[in-house]
């Protein structure tokens, strides 16, 4: 709730970045974070729809999912998770230094976060390439090689169930990678704004907002990793 104020004093003390329809910087900051959290709510439901469909199919075809996940390389998954967690750390430190007004540290951590984000995408690229070579991409019809699925040599129907896992693998990680790209784009704009010295101790809302977004994308991956890579229990390391 806003504290009552008189119209005259309103224009004197606020910082240049206070939008005119807000009464105080604090109200603007709270509105921005609440707005971001409501947006993350919609993102949770967006990925939630896919998790729901994935869970239903996994309960319908447990055997097909377990044996198909032999083709996933958990080493890639674990590496990606570690990279993302480090990028989350650097993002948190970036927000912290923005809050304390340390411009150099802020820009350094933003660059680090972007580097780790790009590293994640590069690892993801290698993984997709490996699946492409391995003919495991059901998206392009005719490219999903039914015969080359060792666990079920000539069961076209069985590998139909298997291709559902790969469809969800590509959709979930694909949408996640898309969100990563948007995140990196967001980081570049925040970096440019930081370089122009826009942020200060009492105005750092954009950094906080992009931090929330980045951590959310990290959380989605935290759930994707066990669900997509570690299905078959007691599997030997590939």
């Amino acid at each position, binding site marked *: 709730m806003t504290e009552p104020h008189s119209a005259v004093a309103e224009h004197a003390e606020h910082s240049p970045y206070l939008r005119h329809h807000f009464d105080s910087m604090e109200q603007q900051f709270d509105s921005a974070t609440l*707005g971001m959290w409501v947006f993350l709510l919609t993102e949770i*439901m967006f990925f939630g*729809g896919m998790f729901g469909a994935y869970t239903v199919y996994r309960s319908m075809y447990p055997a097909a999912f377990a044996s198909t996940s032999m083709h996933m390389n958990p080493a890639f998954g674990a590496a990606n998770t570690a990279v993302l967690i480090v990028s989350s750390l650097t993002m948190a430190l970036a927000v912290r230094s923005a809050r304390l007004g340390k411009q150099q540290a802020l820009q350094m951590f933003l660059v680090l976060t972007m580097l780790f984000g790009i590293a994640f995408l590069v690892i993801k690229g290698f993984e997709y390439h490996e699946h492409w070579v391995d003919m495991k991409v*059901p*998206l392009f019809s005719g490219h999903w090689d039914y015969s080359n699925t060792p666990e079920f040599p000539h069961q076209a129907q069985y590998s*139909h169930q298997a291709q*559902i896992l790969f469809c969800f693998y590509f959709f979930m990680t694909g949408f996640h990678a898309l969100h990563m790209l948007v995140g990196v784009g967001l980081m570049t704009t925040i970096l440019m704004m930081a370089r122009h010295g826009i942020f200060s101790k009492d105005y750092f809302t954009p950094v906080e907002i992009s931090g929330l977004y980045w951590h959310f994308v990290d959380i989605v991956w935290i759930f994707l990793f066990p669900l997509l890579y570690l299905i078959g229990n007691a599997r030997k390391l590939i």
Partner: protein
Amino acid sequence: MSTALQTPEVAETPNYLNSEYGWKSWLFTKDHKRIAVLYIISITVMFFIGGIFASLIRIELLTPQGDLVNSGTYNKFFTMHGIVMVFFFLIPSIPATLGNFFLPMQIGAKYLAFPRINLLSWYIYIAGAIFALAAIVLGGVDTGWTFYTPFSSTYSNTFVITAAVGVFIAGFSSILTGLNFIVTVHKMRAPGMTWGRLPLFVWANYATSLIQVLGTPVVAITLALVGLERAFHIGIFDPAIGGDPILFQHMFWFYSHPAVYIMILPGMGVISELVTCFSRKSIFGYPFVAASSLGIAIIGFLVWGHHMFVTGMSMYASLYFSLLTMLVAVPSAIKIFNWTATMFRGSISYDTPMLYAFGFIGLFTIGGLTGLFLATLGVDVHVTDTYFVVAHFHYVMVGGMVLAYLGGMHFWWPKITGRMYPEGWAKFAALLVFAGFNLTFFPQFITGYLGQPRRYHAYAPEFQVLNVMSTAGASVLGLGYIIPLIYFLWSMKYGPKAGNNPWNAKGLEWQTTSPPPTFNFEQTPIVTEDAYAYGSESAPEEAHHHD
């Protein structure tokens, strides 16, 4: 269209219409009122496009053997009627037009919380509309507005992906409006405007925003999966390649049932405003009416299974969803009873908005109760997918939502444009709409129970008489819609000038000039009394502005 709005002699006092001119001032505006006017124009265009398809359907159904167009074209008619009406008129209409305009004013705010996101939501709506219109122009889509797989993903060869992308994009416009409303109501209320004093129109739009934010992403991902499945021939929902079409229906109706509450809840908010203003009484049982909006929003997410009783969903799931659908009907009943009780010992005037409110209360009661037929398992097996369902949801959507929209437009027209609409013509149009509507859709209850299935291009000959009655009613209804369009446009130029508070209503929006200034109020008002304090203990003619 937009030039007609800025007639200089409307009001000398600076207001949001004459504060700046030129198309840039409209297309790059951050003023929630101008964005609301942009939405009103685009909503009306889409409404009449949907209406054209509706009239083509009704003409086609004059004869049992279906000889106006072949069945493929007829399927495209009802699909486009469904898509355009549901996603481009019903869902955005009251929140994006009247909500955008009046929610900030009713809580005493100068602006919405995120003005640029609000403009972005209109552009996204226009982008979605362009895709949908492209799907129409290129050749139409014939999957029904429900896009059921595996027909939509594998067997239909029409522009399904174009339409799905259009709906996908329009969904984000709805999300952004919802997000804006939630943050505005939480963070930007005027001092003294506690939750207990919020007007019920704001409560209804807040509950609607919760549904928009929680439900729309799921239909976005569902349509994305159908689009991807169609593009890459993979088998998420295609049983031949291991998918499960029932899962599509679960994911689709998870959003689409709360979507019907997105459509009706703002209408209920408008009716609460109309009934209180034209009975000059505060609402009966304010906390219950406000809580019932939230109740509908939350329980609305637990009931979608009643669309799938006959699809082979398990028996116990049908039991679960049937029971909860009975529960979701209770808040709607509370609202109806409270509106009726509000009129008790009131001083009721028969202005056009009140006529629409009477119509709404009557027709929404029929619509709601026929919904119980569809929630009752025994009867639903017989009547689902027949014209009984068509009649039910038109009673709620047209009898409820469109009447509320027209009532709200008439109620707030003087505030939006500073001009009064012609009362005589408006009353005539209201009666036309009421009569035409009942003649159109009541016979469909009868043909529904007789067993005429939905979406039929040619039907059994014994249903013809009832269908002819329905088409006759549709023509009266169509006329009833065109008259308001004419006199609203006429009134912008020639309508008598309306004062700041023609209905001497109590809301904050009536305490400022009409049309309101760009920042709604000279000073942020201080709220001291309850929402509808008609004849409250304070002086009956309290001063306009408290300092």
